[in-house]
């Protein structure tokens, strides 16, 4: 115990004695480990942001989403998707066995909105009364779109808090007037704030009755998508198959023609995003592994030089009774400690940087246990691997030659 302690102390004190070397050795490692840590923290943050967003969209296991336009999840171009779903589709799907509710919506292109002297540009979406409940999105003030609104295609609007702030400041907007494009509306409610989900401000939205969106704000009655809730989550595959055949029939798609709609289950979406962020993290991990390898080579070379400079010290130790392996362990211990110190510094720097990334750039990050382990494993590995050659060189020195 006392001997191990002395060896540790000896390693620390010789590192201190050679601190300029040690610092040089640590720089590359610190950068490598810091970037590794940041990468993992961002990867972890992205996943958490996605899962919390999906949860806040009310995407439980008993629901899925049908989107207009065909293609495959993850490889669709989001811009110019054909809008293919219709109100009749929504009606047919709600009659499918196992379907509890269908909540359709229609996205209107981003529109200029004005109230009094203020204006802003925001997303406008046509929705049905079930929309807010399906997303577990409570109201802050007033009411949501009602069935009467739908029937009358009423010009009423429910605002997200960002829009409220832009147009009305701190004042209560319920009952006030605004214009979406040229069409006048009355504000009937305000949604609670959901905050941003990393890449998008979710409170930057105006909801109007679905029928108002189709009849007054755009020239067609097509739907952007619909959320389907099932009576029983275990029947997902069966319901999906039935919905697919109903939609293909409604759209008169011949066999062999691909779907012009896309069914997205939360499970698939989650998997896709996880896979994407995983492969990104894996790639960047590889990049930092390469930089860590390079820093390992730097460490090795500096230590080799240091060993020749310290030949005399090694000779002294051998003269007073150090065995070859005592010298071997000493140098290995030193390289391990340099690497560990570099690893810890890099880790702290990575944590600091990801905190700054969240704070200044609003990039979501979260503590990543795997990143933590990679960082420690990598630095210890680099220390051991690249300490071997210098340690062997030191241990191989002949005591008399070393003392010369």
């Amino acid at each position: 115990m006392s001997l191990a302690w002395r060896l540790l102390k000896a390693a620390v004190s010789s590192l201190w004695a050679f601190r300029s070397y040690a610092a040089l050795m640590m720089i590359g490692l610190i950068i490598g480990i810091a970037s590794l840590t940041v990468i993992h923290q961002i990867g972890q943050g992205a996943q958490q942001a996605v899962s919390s967003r999906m949860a806040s969209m009310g995407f439980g296991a008993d629901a899925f989403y049908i989107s207009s336009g065909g293609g495959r999840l993850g490889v669709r171009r989001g811009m110019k998707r054909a809008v293919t779903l219709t109100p009749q589709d929504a009606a047919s799907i709600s009659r499918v066995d196992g379907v509890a509710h269908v909540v359709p919506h229609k996205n209107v292109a981003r529109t200029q909105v004005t109230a009094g002297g203020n204006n802003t540009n925001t997303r406008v979406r046509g929705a049905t009364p079930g929309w807010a409940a399906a997303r577990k999105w409570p109201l802050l003030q007033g009411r949501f779109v009602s069935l009467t609104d739908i029937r009358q295609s009423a010009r009423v609007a429910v605002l997200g808090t960002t829009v409220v702030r832009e147009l009305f400041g701190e004042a209560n907007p319920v009952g006030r007037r605004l214009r979406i494009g040229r069409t006048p509306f009355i504000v009937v409610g305000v949604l609670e704030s959901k905050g941003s989900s990393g890449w998008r401000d979710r409170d930057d939205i105006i909801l109007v009755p679905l029928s108002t969106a189709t009849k007054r704000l755009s020239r067609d009655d097509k739907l952007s998508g619909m959320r389907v809730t099932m009576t029983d989550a275990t029947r997902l595959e069966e319901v999906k198959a039935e919905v697919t055949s109903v939609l293909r029939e409604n759209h008169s798609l011949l066999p062999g023609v691909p779907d012009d709609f896309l069914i997205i289950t939360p499970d698939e979406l989650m998997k896709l995003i996880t896979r994407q962020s995983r492969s990104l993290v894996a790639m960047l991990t590889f990049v930092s592994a390469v930089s860590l390898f390079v820093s390992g080579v730097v460490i090795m070379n500096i230590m080799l030089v240091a060993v020749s400079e310290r030949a005399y010290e090694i000779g002294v130790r051998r003269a007073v009774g150090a065995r070859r392996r005592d010298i071997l362990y000493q140098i290995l211990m030193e390289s391990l400690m340099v690497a560990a110190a570099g690893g810890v510094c890099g880790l702290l720097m990575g944590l600091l940087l990801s905190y700054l990334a969240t704070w200044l750039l609003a990039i979501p990050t979260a503590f990543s246990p795997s990143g933590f382990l990679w960082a420690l494993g990598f630095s210890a590995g680099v220390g051991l691997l690249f300490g071997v050659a210098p340690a062997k060189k030191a241990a191989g020195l002949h005591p008399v030659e070393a003392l010369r």
Partner: protein
Amino acid sequence: MIKLKGITKTYYRGKVETPVLLGIDLHVRPGEFLAIMGPSGSGKSTLLHILGLLDRPTGGSYRLDGSEVSDLSDDELARLRNDKLGFVFQAFHLLPKSTALDNVLLPFTYAGHFPEDARERARRALGRVGLEHRLHHRPGEMSGGECQRVAIARALVNDPEVIFADEPTGNLDQRSSLEIISILQGLHAEGRTIVLVTHDTAVGCMCRRLMRVVYGNVDSDEAVAEPTQAIEQLQTLKEAAK
């Protein structure tokens, strides 16, 4: 204690052979104070390295306490160096970044286990060479004579059977040299065995037995009739300075 028979040493550098020791016979008995003298390049250091188990001879037999040393592994030699031998070098060979106390503690680091009274023993060894007031000084903060005394304390701390000294006064002024030799004479008076290498006749005459090595052979080996007492010379020197 130490018995050399026909020890030879040849250095090989590529194809160049340098025979340095041509067949040394030597018997060192416990309590002896032996000086090995000879001109520069005559192989004194080479011989001392072999005696001190820092190097292996090319041929011949070396028995330490009755057992043949050439059969031992490197690790066993290291163990013996730690256990039974102490070294004092011309250039002190202290760890420059360590304090006097830590330098003296160094042999314990490799002693297999670190004795509980190690610090106490190191302090006592430094006291023995008159450096109780320099425990926490580093080599750079001490004079050459003080550094060499730290080196003697380090050689002494593990209570060795033999102390080897290679030109211990080679880098020192006259006064420091006399101080070092008087310490060694004191250690010898306490019963320690000392083997010292020097090319300085004055130093050689302060030992009890003098062996001359010339061209790798033992030229002469005899007792010193009346060894000079370093402490007396030191007194004379001090008086002359006044």
